[in-house]
């Protein structure tokens, strides 16, 4: 690699550390652009980099900072930003010891009649009652709203299928009848984030069982991530037919049970790597954000622009006196299409119904 290429690759690496998606292909574009420009002119180098390495207005201030630092000869300062995410995880491990799986207030209810159980807060059930609710959960009808696809199928009514009409006519030697067509449909993708931090511990299992039901009903149109201090994809684990096995598998891959919540950071990571385009996004969390609420707000704004609907599932929403007052919840609220309850079987039945008609 010649010196220019090495310098520019280093610059791209600095940008990546600062959160700009300056990947290999973009770096190659930069080198190609520099073929046409004067590499000794800082202005032209600045623009060549900005035009090829950035992908949105959010990138621009970071780009300016990195450009000044890197070409101003202060590389060391920038490399430090690359290690912050590691130290953050370490720091996070020490905070918030977690409250365990059960909050230890077994309800005195003896009746295990389903009608009663349906509306009860799962965090206040006995083991046996919760098991009953979870069995019901596996039976949730997993309907899913459908979206129009770009494909067509032939139909008796609908738009005229011109191609098929002509083909028919050719074959028969005359225009015998008109053919019609219509768009096929496909299920909308659901992307679900399950907060597994300490404050959500009483609800985590129920939420994961709900996620399991979603995955089972539409395996190819559901993606689930656990969120706490880091983002972990758990869709593959949830594909097991048996909910118990699935949850067992999930528990093996989630590294951060009962830590704090850094949903803002995690959504940012998600948006950098994946896309929720056209999807229904479910965020199951109580909104006790330990990161910067403002970051959570900006990430949700991005998510809302991509997604078809953003629905926040908050266990506490089930109570009449609930007010979305936590920093995270307040930052998120402007970007949500809906804030729904997620504390009882009835609440999940309603949510399931919503997904069928969203």
């Amino acid at each position, binding site marked *: 690699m010649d010196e220019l290429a090495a310098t520019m690759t280093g610059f791209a690496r600095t940008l990546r550390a600062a959160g700009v*998606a300056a*990947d290999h*292909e*973009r770096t190659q*574009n930069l080198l*190609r*652009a520099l073929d*046409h*420009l*004067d590499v000794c002119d800082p*202005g*032209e180098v600045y*623009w*060549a980099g*900005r*035009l*090829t390495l*950035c*992908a*949105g*207005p959010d990138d*621009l201030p970071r780009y300016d900072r990195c450009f000044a630092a890197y070409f101003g000869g202060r590389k060391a300062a920038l490399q430090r930003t690359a290690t912050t995410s590691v130290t953050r995880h370490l720091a996070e491990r020490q905070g918030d010891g977690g409250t365990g799986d059960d909050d230890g207030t077994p309800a005195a209810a003896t009746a295990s009649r389903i009608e009663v159980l349906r509306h009860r807060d799962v965090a206040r059930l006995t083991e046996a009652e919760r098991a009953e609710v979870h069995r019901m959960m596996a039976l949730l009808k997993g309907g899913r709203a459908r979206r129009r696809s*770009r494909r067509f199928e032939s139909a008796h009514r609908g738009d*005229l299928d*011109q*191609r098929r*009409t*002509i083909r028919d*006519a*050719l*074959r028969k*030697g*005359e*225009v015998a009848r008109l053919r019609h067509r219509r768009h096929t449909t496909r299920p909308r993708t659901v992307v679900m984030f399950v907060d597994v931090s300490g404050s959500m511990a009483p609800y985590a299992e129920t939420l994961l069982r709900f996620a399991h039901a979603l995955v089972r009903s539409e395996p190819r149109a559901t993606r689930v991530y656990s969120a706490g201090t880091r983002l972990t994809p758990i869709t593959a684990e949830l594909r097991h037919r048996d909910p118990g096995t699935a949850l067992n598998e999930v528990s093996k891959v989630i590294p951060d049970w009962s830590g704090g919540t850094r949903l803002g950071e995690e959504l940012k990571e998600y948006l950098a790597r994946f*896309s929720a*385009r*056209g999807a229904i996004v479910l965020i199951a969390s109580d909104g006790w954000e330990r990161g910067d609420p403002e970051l959570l707000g900006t990430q949700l704004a*991005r998510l809302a*622009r*991509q997604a078809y609907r953003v629905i926040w599932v908050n266990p506490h929403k089930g109570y009449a006196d609930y007010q979305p007052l936590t920093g995270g919840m307040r930052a998120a609220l402007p970007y949500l299409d809906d804030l729904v309850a997620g504390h009882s079987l009835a609440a999940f039945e309603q949510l399931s119904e919503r997904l069928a008609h969203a």
Partner: protein
Amino acid sequence: MDIESPEKLIELLDRHAYLADEGLATAAFLALRMGRPLFLEGEAGVGKTELAKTLAALLKAPLIRLQCYEGLDAAQALYDWDFARQLLHLKAAEAAGITDVSRLEGEIYDRRFLIARPLLKAIETQPSVLLVDEIDRADDEFEAFLLEVLSDFTISIPELGTVRARTPPVVVVTSNRTREVHDALKRRCLYHWLEHPDFDREVAILLRRLPGCTETLAMQVARAAERLRQADLVKPPGVAETLDWTEALLTLGAKELDPGRAAATLGAALKYREDVAAVIGNGLLSHG
């Protein structure tokens, strides 16, 4: 046309009354040199579409415009068969007693029955400027499809074969960022975020575009526009709107921006009733 540097392009654009800064000129210069699409993002009215029109004028190439909207599909963007004429042709053949299917087929899928939509038209026209306007309004599936066409500038038509551009068209893709566009598409393009012009540039644009405009009036309108853009309006005025506004003032014979005339012509700059009300209510027009 050989354009040797971004500075030269600034000069050429200026001759067509488009005042570009260094960033935009470098972006357009590289798009021409590298044969890559230019992806322009920014609020409505900052001059994205206008750049495509000006590039077409200075390259003396036709501007082919694909206006995006929800539900836009391949048939509307690429090509379509002229169904009515195909049917007529079949009827005529039937009347003439022609029954040879393969011959009929060859006749029906002839180039003359093909209707070129913007993308095919741009690939067939040398040279041309293709404007894919407001890509953020199209469905996201359309982006993947567009990426394919913009990657190799070929379109394959099953009944006819592949159409390839001898020299790729100059492509300008615009987005108002109401929705995020696929990264894959952006990566294929040169990305430029276009801001509202600063005060000096806006004054220069007004003077350049409106010959009857005095410097005083241009400065007053530009300053008012600056204030309006900071005023948290539903739709802050873009350059297009300040131009309209100034033109309206000139039509009334204004040499200066007095509050009375400003209020009377405000509809040229602001397009929402609540914006007009807010601006007048807050006394934003009294210049200081």
